[in-house]
């Protein structure tokens, strides 16, 4: 710290005041404002105030300093280019871009990079690889059972290097790296689709990140910017009201005989060896047969996703569906990789949003 001292930027006081006030979304702390700003007049109220590295945020030492800030000589400065977020008395700056920083509960897509002692290392596009413990996956042969030594020995049969999976961030370690879990039937290994990477800051956080899109295609928009576009699973097990374990097993059996693939809920009752067999299908490496038209739809969605990311438009499923509709007017799937086409799709999307009053 002895190396750098920074003089106060020669910007007008009004602007500094403006940066102090970011129209807090999380809390309605109008009374608090008067309190902590200590007489500084709120001249302008804008929601997103942009700061750059080295810019003075406040000289009031009573603020708590969060991510993206640093403290020098009783003054708080920004360390990244981004917008100020204020929660009560905590000031932090969220960078415009940057690597994904995991948060508990995030639905993400990742790729296995290493199999090691009772855990997998997963590349999730963050600063550190995430960890998926053997105990945090659905083990073959029954949804809930304890891991055994046999499982430890055949970890590669479950997930191996290069496999893609979707998972949820279970917890965070001290250094910011994540621990994942896939203990739900909506998580697990990914098949029947294509992997797309977009910048993580473009993904809009939502309640649900897995969507069925028009055209027989489903998509997982991982919060970390890794996306998976795949054929919608067929023959979803019919949820019969008050179904006994017997009927569940039967449904699973029927589904298995129909398409020979994995269906959710299939492994939930493991009473026969067939059940055990089919639950391995969760970790199967074989794709189902996918018709050419579905493949084309998947490619079109992929190109639409890339077009949105090329135009830096934030992505959610409604926008992607709209971009898909727009792209149909631009002819063949392969023409969508053209930069000009990508840009005009983005423009059309923004304009169509403006006309309806929402983007």
């Amino acid at each position, binding site marked *: 710290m002895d190396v*750098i001292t920074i003089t106060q930027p020669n910007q007008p006081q009004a602007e500094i005041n403006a940066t102090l006030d970011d129209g807090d979304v999380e809390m309605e702390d109008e009374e608090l404002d008067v309190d902590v700003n200590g007489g500084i007049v709120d001249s302008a109220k804008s929601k997103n105030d*942009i700061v750059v590295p080295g810019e003075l945020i406040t000289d009031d030492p009573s603020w708590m300093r969060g991510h993206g800030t640093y403290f020098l000589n009783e003054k708080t400065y920004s*360390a990244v280019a981004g917008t100020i977020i204020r929660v009560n008395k905590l000031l932090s700056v969220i960078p415009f871009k940057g690597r994904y920083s995991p948060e508990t509960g995030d639905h993400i897509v990742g790729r296995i990079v290493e199999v090691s002692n009772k855990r997998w290392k997963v590349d999730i596009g963050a600063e550190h690889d995430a960890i998926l413990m053997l105990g945090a996956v659905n083990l073959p042969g029954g949804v809930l059972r304890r891991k055994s030594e046999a499982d430890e020995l055949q970890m590669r049969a479950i997930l191996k290097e290069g496999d893609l999976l979707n998972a949820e961030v279970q917890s965070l370690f001290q250094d910011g790296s994540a621990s994942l879990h896939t203990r739900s039937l909506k998580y697990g290994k990914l098949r029947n689709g294509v992997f797309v990477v977009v910048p993580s800051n473009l993904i809009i956080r939502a309640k649900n990140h897995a969507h069925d899109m028009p055209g027989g295609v489903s998509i997982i928009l991982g919060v970390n910017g890794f996306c998976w576009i795949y054929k919608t699973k067929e023959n979803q097990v019919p949820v019969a009201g008050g179904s006994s374990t017997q009927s569940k097993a039967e449904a699973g059996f029927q589904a298995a005989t129909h398409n020979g693939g994995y269906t959710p809920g299939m492994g939930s009752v493991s009473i026969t060896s067939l059940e055990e067999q089919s639950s391995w299908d969760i970790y199967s490496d074989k794709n189902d047969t996918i018709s050419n038209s579905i493949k084309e739809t998947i490619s079109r969605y992929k190109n639409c996703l890339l077009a949105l990311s090329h135009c830096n438009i934030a992505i959610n499923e409604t926008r992607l569906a709209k971009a898909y509709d727009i792209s149909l007017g631009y002819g063949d799937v392969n023409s969508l990789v053209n930069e000009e086409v990508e840009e005009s799709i983005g423009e059309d999307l923004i304009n169509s949003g403006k006309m309806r009053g929402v983007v």
Partner: protein
Amino acid sequence: MDTTYASSAVKALPDAPVLSILINHPPFASMERKKRPRNDRRLAELSIILKRCFEKTIMLQNYARSVIEVTVTILSFDGGLLATCCNSITLALIDAGISLYDYVTAVTVGIYDQTALLDLNSLEEADLSFITIGVVGDSDKLNLILCEDRLPLDRVERLISLGIEGCHRLKQLMNETVREVGTDLLSKKQ
């Protein structure tokens, strides 16, 4: 990329962050086509200077157990190599969302007779004495200085003060661009 270097450094101190800077100067970048050896000593020296400079600028304490790799490729060379690398690295780091204490801007200042000149091209660099200086933000602090020629001592102070002014102007320009890009990104967000 530069993984061998990184891994050896990681071994030395397991938790310490590593910053590695690599400069590529392809044959087509200069005026006359010239193939450079892979481990050009001059480029290696520049990358060490830049590494020292940015180790003090990046908030490395936030990046324990990680490697920050910066690769600069020169596409067209006409003087001011170190200064341009420094400026582009600053912008790249900001774009990557890496925590910095402040901008580092650099510029070359040369002396022609009694006149100080900012930002020399390669012909001027060949004939005139010059220094490269890097300034932290809007302050007068230098965290990069390189002088490879003989200079009259009584002129140095004037050169440096002109250089600092040049750097401040550069910082202003960078600042405007960063804000512009940021505003554009925000406008398309929600």
